[in-house]
C-alpha cells in the first residue's frame, strides 16, 4: 500500500533562493511527524507546500493517493495551524472554531453541537463567546487547534505550534497535543526549531538543513546514532574526535595516535582512513583516579558549570582534545573535580558514535 503522504523529488525556489531542494519523504497514516531544523532551512516552506499555499517548482506531492498538483488549500483533506494562530480577531471563539464548518454547510444545532464538541476536546467549553484578545496565549493556541481540527482533516499541519507559549505551559501542552493526536488518529506534521519539543512530540523526526532532509528517524536513533556531524551537533551536545583508523577488527575500530579510542561499528572502515567519532556528554565518566576501564584518557578540567542535578564539565587532554561531559550529582565519597585539577575520563566503546561523513 502506498504511504499516506508521498513527496517525490520536491523542489521549491523563490526567485533565486532554493527553499526546498529535491526532497523525498513518505509519511504513514496516523503518524506524528516532526520537521526539525534551524530557521530558514525550508521546513515551513515544506509545510506550506503540503497545505497548498505554495506549489512546488518541481516534483509531486501525493496525499492519500491523490496528486495534489493544482488542488486549492480548501479542497485538500488538510488543515493548517498557524504559528501565531492567525485567529480571526473580530470573531468569538465559537465563531473561529465554526468558520470552517459553516463553509462546509453545517448550520444550526448541528453546528453548535460540533463546535461544543471541539471546544470540549481542547477544554475551552465555557469560553465560546470570548474574543481572541480576551484569551491567554495557551487558550488561543487551543482555539487554533480546535479550529484546524473542525473539518476533520486527514492531515493536520502545525507550524511551530508551541513557540509562542512560555516554557512551563509548553511542556504541558506538548503532552496534550500528543493525547489529542492519539485520540483522533489524525496524521500530524509539526514544524519546529525546538529539539526538545520535537523529541517529546514525534514518533519520527526529519532533520532539515538547506532545503534537504539530512536524516529521518525515531528520536532515540537520531540522538544515539546520528548519521553525520550535522545531526550529531544539532541534537543536544556532543564532543567530536577527528582521527585516523589505526586498527580494525571484527567488531570495531581504534584510532591511531595518542588518543587510541576504540569504537564499536559495523561500518566498512579501512586502516589509515580519516574518521570522525562523537561521544555524548552523559556517556562519559570522570574520576580522580585511573582504572582499567577501556577508552581511558587523562584530562585537565578547563571549565565547569554546576546545574544542581548535574555538573557540566569541559575537559582537555594533554594533546588539546576537548571533551564536553555531564556528571550526575550522586552520593559519593569522592570530592568532585574542580578547575585545573587532573582526572581521568572513560567511556564505553559501544557509546562512541562513528559518523559517516
Amino acid at each position, binding site marked *: 500500500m502506498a504511504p499516506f503522504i508521498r513527496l517525490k523529488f520536491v523542489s521549491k525556489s523563490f526567485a533565486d533562493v532554493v527553499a526546498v531542494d529535491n526532497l523525498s519523504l513518505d509519511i504513514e497514516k496516523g503518524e506524528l511527524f516532526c520537521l526539525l531544523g534551524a530557521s530558514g532551512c525550508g521546513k515551513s516552506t515544506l509545510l506550506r507546500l503540503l*497545505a497548498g499555499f505554495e506549489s512546488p517548482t518541481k516534483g509531486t506531492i501525493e496525499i492519500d493517493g491523490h496528486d495534489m498538483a493544482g488542488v486549492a488549500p480548501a479542497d485538500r483533506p488538510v488543515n*493548517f495551524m498557524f504559528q501565531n494562530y492567525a485567529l480571526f480577531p473580530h470573531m468569538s471563539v465559537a465563531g473561529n472554531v465554526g468558520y470552517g464548518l459553516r463553509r462546509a454547510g453545517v448550520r444550526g444545532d448541528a453546528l453548535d453541537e460540533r463546535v461544543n464538541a471541539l471546544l470540549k476536546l481542547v477544554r475551552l467549553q465555557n469560553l465560546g463567546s470570548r474574543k481572541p484578545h480576551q484569551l491567554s496565549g495557551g487558550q488561543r493556541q487551543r482555539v487554533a487547534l480546535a479550529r484546524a481540527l473542525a473539518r476533520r482533516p486527514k492531515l493536520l499541519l502545525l507550524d511551530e505550534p508551541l513557540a509562542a507559549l512560555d516554557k512551563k505551559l509548553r511542556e504541558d501542552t506538548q503532552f496534550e497535543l500528543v493525547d489529542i493526536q492519539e485520540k483522533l488518529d489524525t496524521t500530524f506534521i509539526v514544524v519546529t526549531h525546538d529539539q526538545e519539543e520535537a523529541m517529546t512530540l514525534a514518533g519520527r523526526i526529519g532533520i532539515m538543513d538547506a532545503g534537504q532532509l539530512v536524516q529521518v528517524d525515531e528520536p532515540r536513533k537520531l540522538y544515539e546514532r546520528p548519521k553525520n556531524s550535522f545531526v550529531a551537533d544539532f541534537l543536544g551536545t556532543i564532543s567530536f574526535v577527528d582521527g585516523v583508523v589505526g586498527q580494525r577488527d571484527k567488531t570495531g575500530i581504534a584510532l591511531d595516535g595518542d588518543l587510541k579510542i576504540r569504537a564499536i561499528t559495523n561500518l566498512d572502515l579501512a586502516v589509515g582512513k580519516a574518521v570522525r567519532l562523537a561521544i555524548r556528554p552523559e556517556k562519559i565518566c570522570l574520576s580522580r583516579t585511573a582504572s582499567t576501564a577501556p577508552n581511558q584518557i587523562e584530562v585537565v578540567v578547563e571549565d565547569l558549570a554546576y546545574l544542581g542535578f548535574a555538573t557540566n564539565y569541559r575537559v582537555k587532554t594533554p594533546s588539546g582534545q576537548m571533551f564536553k561531559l555531564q556528571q550526575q550529582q550522586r552520593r559519593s565519597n569522592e570530592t568532585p573535580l574542580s578547575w585545573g585539577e587532573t582526572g581521568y575520563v572513560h567511556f564505553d566503546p559501544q557509546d562512541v558514535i562513528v559518523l559517516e561523513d
Partner: protein
Amino acid sequence: MGRMNGLVLSLGALGFGILYLPIIVMIIYSFNAGKLVSVWSGASLKWYASLLENDQLLSAFGTSLLIAIWAATIATVFGICIAIAFVRFGNFRSRLALSAIASAPLVMPEIVTGLSMLLLFISMESLFGWPAGRGVDTIIIAHATFGMCFAAVVVQARLRDFDMAIEEAAADLGATQPFIFLSITLPVIAPAVVAAWLLAFTLSFDDLVIASFVSGPGSSTLPILVFSKVRLGVTPEINALATVMILVVAVAVIGASWVLRRRLAARSPD
C-alpha cells in the same frame, strides 16, 4: 524639569489658543443679538432661528451633505481597491507610475485639480454628451477623485499591518476569495475604512475651490454659498451656520475616534 514643563505647557497653550480662540470667538458671536458681527449687543438665538428659515442655506446644506456622502462612499471603495493593489500585488509593472498618479492629488494645488476637472467635463460633454452640463454629479465625481487618494493612504496603512496568515487560515478552512474579503479582510480593516470615509466626507463637505470650478446652476454647495454671502458682508447668521457645521463635524470625528480607539484597544493583545 519643572521649567521645561512650564515651557512645554505655555507653548501648548499658545498653540491651542491660536487654533481655537478664533473659533470660540465665532461661536460666542453666533449668539449675538445685534446685526454687527464684531459688536456684542446681548445674547440671543435669533440667528439660529433665521438659519432655520433660510431655505437657500438649508438646501445648500442638503446638497453638500448629499455630495459628501456619495463622494466619500465612491472614494472609499476606490481607495480600498488602490490600497489592495499597492499592498498585495507586490511589484507589478507600472506600480511606480500608478503610485505617483494616486498620490499626485494629495499635493496638487486644488485650483489645478479644479481647473483640470472642469476641462475634462467640458471635453467629455462635447465628445459623448455626458455629463450634460455641470451640477451635483460632476461635483461628486471631482470630490471622489481626490478623496480616493486620501482614502487609499489611510487604508494602505492598515492593510500593511494586516496579518496575511488570517486570510490563509480562512482559505484553508474552505472560504473562497470574495468570501474571505467580506468575512475576514473587510471587518478587520473596518476602522481604517470608517476613518477613510470620514476623511473623504469632510474633505468633500468643506471643499470650496474644486466645487466652484465644477458646479453648475442650482448645485451650490454650502461652502460656495457661504463664500458668496461673505463677500456681501458677514452676518451673524453665518456665524451660527459655522457653529452648526463645527458641531456636526465634531460629533462625527469624536464619535469615530471613540469607536476606533475602542476597537484598537480591543485588538491589541493582552
